[in-house]
Each structure stands twice: as C-alpha cells, then as structure tokens.
C-alpha cells in the first residue's frame, strides 16, 4: 500500500514537474498570438476573446496603449475622408458605428460631438464638395453642406470669414487610451493572456505554426500570428516573412489646452485635408480640454519630441479656424507617430508566402475609428485560414468604472460611507480620489507607473500636470506594490523619478 502510494505521489510530482517546466520554458501553444497592444491589438484581442480560443497578446511596453494610441487626435471620424472603395473607407464607416456601442458597453468616455470641415477660401468650397460626395459614396447618410452663416451659428468662435462647411453629425471624440485599455481588460477577463514588457525578438516558422521568442527569454508557440505592432509592424513582419512593405513614422505634434478653453468650440473643427492627412484640427476632448493639432513631418526612428517649428506651424494653421484660440493656456504638448506604409490603404491581409501570419499594418488615421472593424476583419481572415471559431456562451461584455467626480452629491455621500478611500481627493485638478486609484490596482491590467495611473483615472492630467498629486500617487503605488518609491517609474520601466532615499547614512558627495 505504501509503495503504491509513493509511486502515485511520484507520478503526480513528475507530471507537475513537467507541466511546471513546460510553463517555465513557455512552451504553450496558442491559437493566436497578437503582437502589439495598441488600439488595434486591443480591439482584436477583445473581438477574438468572444470565441473559444487560446490567445496571447505580447506588448513591448509596460502598459497597453503606449504608442500612437495615447498620442493622437482622439477623434471618431465620420468617414467622408477615405477614398471610396478602399478598405479604409469600409472599415472607417463600420468602425464609427461599433465604436460608440463599445464605448457605452465598456464605460469608455466618449461624446458624439459632430464635426465641421471648414471652407475658408473659394478653393476650399470645391474640396468640401468632394468630401461630401465621398461621404455619400462611403455610405454616410446624414452629412450636409452648410453655409458660412450656419457654421458660425453652430460655432460662434470660428473664423468669421468662413464660407461654408461640411457638417458630419456622427463624428465624435473618445479617450483613446481608455478605449484600448477597456477592450484589453475585457479581453483578459474573457481569458486572453497579456504579456507586457515582452518585445518580440524572433518568430520562427514551425510545423504547428510559429515559435515566438520575447525579450527576457519567454518562448511560446502559436498556430497563427496577428501583427498589430504599429510603427514596428514591418520589423515584426520581417521576422517571419519576406519583406512586403515599409513603415515610415510620421510625427504629429499637439497642444492640449486648459479646460477654461474647452468650450471654444463644441464640435471637431477641421480645415481642408492635405496630402499627408486631415490637417490641423481644433476639437474639444472628452475630458473637457481643447486639443489643437497635429503637425505632420517624417522622422527617423521613434522620435516623439515636440519642436518649436512644429508647434508654431500648428498654431498658425489653427488660428485660421479659430482666430481667438489662446495657446498661452496650453497645459501640455505631445507628439505621436503615425504608421505610414508605402501602400495607400490599410494592410489587412495574410502575409504572402507565410500562411498563418496576418498583418494589421499601416494603420494610420482613421485607425482609431476603424479599430473594432479591423478586428472583425482579422477574425474573418482567421476563419478563412481554417481556424475554428466557436462563440463562447458566456462572454463578459460589460465594464464599469467608478468616477467620483461624475456622481451626484447623494451618490458621493453613499460611496464615501461605504469606502472612505473615496473621500480622500488625491488629484485636485481633476477631482480624483484614492479609492479610484486603488481600484486600478485591482483590475486585470493594473498600472505599473505614475503614467499608468494617469491613463486609467486621469490623476495628473490636469492643469498642474501632477505637481500636486504625483507625490501622493507615488505614495499610494509604493504602499500597494510594497516597493521602494525609487523603483516606481514615471512611465516605462527605466523612467525613474526619484534617485535615492535621503534617509540613509551616506555623506553628500561633492562632485
């Protein structure tokens, strides 16, 4: 009896050891490995998590939405801009419809503000007429051409010499990083595994599909790979496939203005589009600020610096739409990189010659808008390639976030009674409480940095830009994570904030 028990125990230990080793060596086979967790990767993970599939997402940064997804105009475009018949056009229009639905379901801040494309000079009239026709061809029912007077009635702060405008009531604004985060969180809650700080360094073709190696040594196998790597899509593509396209990063610089400027306009205000894109816009943000930009210039590598020339250029053009724009009320400047490919349209296809590798590449504007539609297209590609897609019976498709500042007095009183942490205001400018920050630490994708907290709850996003709250947020994070404050980064892992503890017995060194 004893020998049998020992043998059984031995078997159990052996199996446990093997499984443990397999997991340690990362030899797990996924149905799909998604590379990149920006808006496209997150939307694709969310869409795929509806099905009985084993999915992993690999993201090189320490959080989702760290690339272009956190540095763009935050617009849900109506869809009059892309060339009719293009993939971009179809996915833009489909995406607009899906976007507002998803934002409602997943509690993502959004607003259907409508948009105006202004005609400021005679030549512009012809251009907005072309856009109107395009919009109609792309299937948008409710766009209209309006007169200058009508535009000024809608938006009194516009350039008084505006001659007319294209009005698209179905455009809107969203919080793009919260949108990506909401979809990524929902995907994880539905069984997707997310690997942050996991830059992919090699993809080898195998019998089952692909062997994927991440920085730090993690190895896994996946039957299919979806490439949603933004400006690095071509690099990822070339790890496994014959080069097929190039990506040239194109930088857009922005002003973000104080909330006191947030009501300058209530709709997204465009001027005529340029060769590079939709031109400089002035728009309210979903948080109540005003966003002005972007510029457009090609850069080398990951150059997201803001330049004097870039900002002056943006200011000059923006003043043509809204002459009274007070850029001295700027609270922040930032820049994002568009993934311009050398092909005109989105690249949403299986790689030539590499079965099972799917590109979602060159996703420049209207990428944010189209993201959920791109995800649907990716699912279709997987289905066509032979992957069996069986819908889950129980798919978690809701999400709720407590936002103290949006509650009425009664609700605030009850909330604090239930949990006093909601009574401690940490971010003065945006009225964010300790309770909300602690909530983020209990989500499936908790923040790993001050900026991670900022993206989740807005603490640090206000006019003082974290001057008041950052010591407090840091204190909460160190307490919750149980680490020294010197180890909590501003954003990415090596963006240290504090150097050292003053409380140690080392004499000051006189350099």
């Amino acid at each position, binding site marked *: 009896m004893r020998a049998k028990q020992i043998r059984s125990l031995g078997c159990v230990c052996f199996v446990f050891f093997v499984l443990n080793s397999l997991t340690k060596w990362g030899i797990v086979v996924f149905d799909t490995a998604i590379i990149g967790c920006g808006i496209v990767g997150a939307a694709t993970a969310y869409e795929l998590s509806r099905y009985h599939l084993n999915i992993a997402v690999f993201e090189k940064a320490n959080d989702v939405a760290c690339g272009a997804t956190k540095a763009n105009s935050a617009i849900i475009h109506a869809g009059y801009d892309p060339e009719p018949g293009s993939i971009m056009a179809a996915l833009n229009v489909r995406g607009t419809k899906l976007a507002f639905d998803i934002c409602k379901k997943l509690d993502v801040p959004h607003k259907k503000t409508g948009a105006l494309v202004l005609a400021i000079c005679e030549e512009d009239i012809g251009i907005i007429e072309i856009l109107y026709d395009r919009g109609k061809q792309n299937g948008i029912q409710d766009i209209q051409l309006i007169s200058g007077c009508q535009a000024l009635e809608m938006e009194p702060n516009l350039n008084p010499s505006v001659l007319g405008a294209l009005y698209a009531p179905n455009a809107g604004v969203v919080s793009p990083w919260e949108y990506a985060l909401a979809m990524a969180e929902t995907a994880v809650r539905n069984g997707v595994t997310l690997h942050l700080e996991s830059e992919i360094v090699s993809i080898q073709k195998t019998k089952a599909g692909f062997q994927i190696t991440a920085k730090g040594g993690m190895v896994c196998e996946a039957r299919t790979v979806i490439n949603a790597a933004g400006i690095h899509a071509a690099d990822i593509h070339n790890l496994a496939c014959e080069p097929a396209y190039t990506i040239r990063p194109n930088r857009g610089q922005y*002003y*973000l203005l104080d909330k006191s400027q947030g009501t300058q306009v209530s709709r997204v205000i465009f001027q005529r589009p340029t060769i590079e894109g939709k031109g400089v816009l002035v728009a309210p943000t979903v948080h109540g600020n005003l966003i002005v930009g972007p510029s457009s210039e090609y850069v080398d590598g990951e150059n*997201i*610096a*803001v*330049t*004097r020339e*870039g*900002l002056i250029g943006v200011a000059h053009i923006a003043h043509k739409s809204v002459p009274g724009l007070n*850029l*001295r009320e*700027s*609270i*922040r*400047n*930032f820049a994002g990189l568009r993934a311009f490919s050398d092909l005109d349209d989105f690249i949403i296809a299986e790689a030539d010659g590499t079965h099972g590798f799917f590109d979602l590449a060159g996703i420049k504007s209207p990428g944010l808008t189209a993201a959920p539609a791109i995800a649907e297209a990716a699912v279709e590609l997987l289905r066509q390639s032979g992957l069996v897609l069986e819908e889950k019976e129980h798919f978690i498709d809701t999400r709720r976030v407590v936002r103290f500042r949006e509650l009425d*007095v009664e609700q*605030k*009183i009850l909330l*604090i*009674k239930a949990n*006093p*942490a909601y*009574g*401690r*205001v940490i971010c*003065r400018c945006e*009225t964010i*409480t*300790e309770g909300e920050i602690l909530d983020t630490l209990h989500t499936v994708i908790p923040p790993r940095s001050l900026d991670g907290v900022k993206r989740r709850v807005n603490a640090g996003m206000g*006019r*003082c*830009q*974290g*001057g*008041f709250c*950052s*010591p407090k947020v840091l*204190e909460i994070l160190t307490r919750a994570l149980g680490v020294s*404050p*010197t180890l909590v*980064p*501003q*954003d*990415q*892992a*090596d*963006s*240290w*904030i*504090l*150097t*050292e*503890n*003053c*409380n140690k017995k*080392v*004499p*000051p*060194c006189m350099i």
Partner: protein
Amino acid sequence: MHDLIVIGAGPAGLAAACAAYDSGLRDILLVERDCELGGILNQCIHNGFGLHYFKEELTGPEYADRFIRMLKNTNVSVMLNTMALHITPQREVHTVGAANGYQVLRAKSIVLAMGCRERTRGNLCIPGTRPAGIFTAGTAQRFVNIEGYMVGKRVLILGSGDIGLIMARRMTLEGAKVLACVEAMPHPGGLNRNIVQCLQDYAIPLYLSHTVVDIQGRSRVEQVTVSKVDGKRNPIPGTEISFACDTLLLSVGLIPENELSSQAGILLDPRTNGAVVYENMETSVQGVFACGNVAHVHDLVDFVTTESQRAGKAAAESVLGKLVVGNELALQAGEEVSYTVPQRIRISNADQKTDVCFRVRRICSNSRIKVTSGGVELASYPRKHMAPGEMEWISLPYALLKQARDAIEISVEKE
C-alpha cells in the same frame, strides 16, 4: 451655518482665522486638504521668514508654528485631510474628506486662502521629449523635504525665482550637482539674498537672458539645451549650450489657484490671476474674501499675514454687520505698474491707512511712486530701487482718499 469658513490653513488661512476670532467671531471652521496645518510653509525649511512681522529670521515651519500656537488659543474648528470641492455664490461650501465624508456646509462669510500652483513645462511649451526628471521646483521641494527622497543627481534649473534658487542650494546640500540656473529675463527673478546665498555661495552660474529650448532623453532627462534670447524672449540661433543632466527643475512662475473662486462667480483680475478685491480683501461676492497667494502672488509671507489679518477682521465685521458699503473708487495701474491690490476702494470702509500692494514692470532705480487722481498728484513716495520680483507697498492715508475725485492711479516715474 458657520460664521466663517476659511479654505486653506497655510499662512493666509491661519492669520485670517485668528484675526476673525480676535474680532469677535466664535463659529469658525478652517478646512485644510493636507494632513497638518501650515500649508506650503511646512516644506519651506529655509529661513528668511518673519523679518518684518516678528523682527526675527525664522524658517517656514517656525513661522507656521507661531500661528498654529495662536490658533490653539482660539476655538476655531479644524478639518484636516479635507478638500473644498465647490463653493456657490450663496456661500455654500462642499467639502470631502475620508473622516467626515461629503459635506455641504453653509457660512455667513468665507475666506479664500487656497494659495497657488506652479507654472508647468506645458504652460511654456518647452520643446523636446517628455522624459521623467522634469519637476516644478515646489514639487521637488516636497519630495526632498517632506517625503525624504532625492529627485536627481545632475540638475539644471530654469527660472531664477526664489523657489528655484532655494532648491539650487537644497539639492547641492543633499549631494546633487547643480549645473546652472537659467533665467529668460535680463535680471534675476528672486530676492538678491537668494542669488547670493543659493547660487554664488555654491559657484552655480546664472545665465541671464537665456532659456531652455530643448529637452532630450528617452525615459529620463539626458540633456537640456539652453539658448540666449532676444528682447522678445525668442531664442537666438547659434547661441545654444548643452548641459548633460538628469533633472530639470522649473521655477517659472506661480498661478493663484482660483478654480473655487470662478465657481462662486467671483470676478477675477487677469493681471493678478486672483480675485478683484476691495480695500478689506472682500471680493465681488458679498461676504467672500480672498487673501494671500490666492489673491496675488507674494514674495514675503509677512505681507501675506498682514493682508490675511485684514481679510479675517473684515469677514468678522461683515458677519457682525459692521461693514459699510458705499461709493467705490477704482485703483488703476499707471506707468510702469503692472497691477495693484486692492483694485477697488470703498472710502466709507477704509481704515486710517489703506495698504496698496503693487509690482513694477521693470527694474526702476531712483524713482518715485506717484499717486494721482483726475490728473492731480495726491502723494509721491521716493524709492531707490524697485524690481518686478519684489512686491512694493504704500499706505494711503484716509485724508488722501477723500481728496480723490476720480479713479486713483499708481504710477512710477524716474527722478
């Protein structure tokens, strides 16, 4: 219903609460968002406070302590860890705190003493990347003096305002290397004693007429580029100097924190970024007073104290029905003067002397301050030296105010 709610327990709030008590109010509530009384003074561990008010040189915490002790001799109630979120023109104050939850309080009078915030990199639109290691000087001061952590090893300071100068010395004494202090104006912004004791003492170079034109660094600051500027503060190409550093401290201005004031419909002065106030610090909303940095940025806490005592006393008078609201005179900023506080005077309410604070637009040596009304000169005060970084004040006698026919203008003329 309280007699008085004071929002903020820094030097302004403390002085106002004590003065209101001394003037007869007995139901005063002092609301403070931090965990202790004293406000910004708690992190100002350097000395230089109290030279005028106490005729002694004190550190920030010592100065605060004097008023905290005075407060303990009153029956003023204090709510710490409590943030005022909203005030209405009807003098309703919404507060929130872990201990007392969300409360809607009412008061017969309110003193606003919320202080100010610091101007940020984003306000100045400084080009470059957005790495960690860029702090406003006050936030860095909080980290070093209260939290006990250093914010960097090789530091560049933009702005020669007092906070930047103080931090230059503080960082040096804690072992950092401060490479330079850079100032866009052709003259220093802070007090001369700080230029001497914070920069010169430590051989930290001061670059006047220079500003930061680029910040580099992927995750943390690696390099900051500084350039000379012309008279319009535009960078002059070809004058760039690069500093290899890991920290940039910004001391580029303070902005009175008037979010609550705007909500209450209080009229603000765009020149001070604070409320338009009368001679007794009352705002455009009856029964609401503003004092200290929330009304206009001060250089010396001693003047915050006297101004706030005036506000506290006036709040008491307003509750006790002793305020007389009569004809108003506007105070105007004339030649070389950027603003005056107060902006309006009600003669019927004026004391024997009415203190007027103002700042000059540029350095004025050997000048005189002229007080005129309707073109007639009513008084003149000679001054050897005035600078924008040092707030000036004059005391207008009641008799002079009676002579004024029209708005009173304060201007500065070279001798």
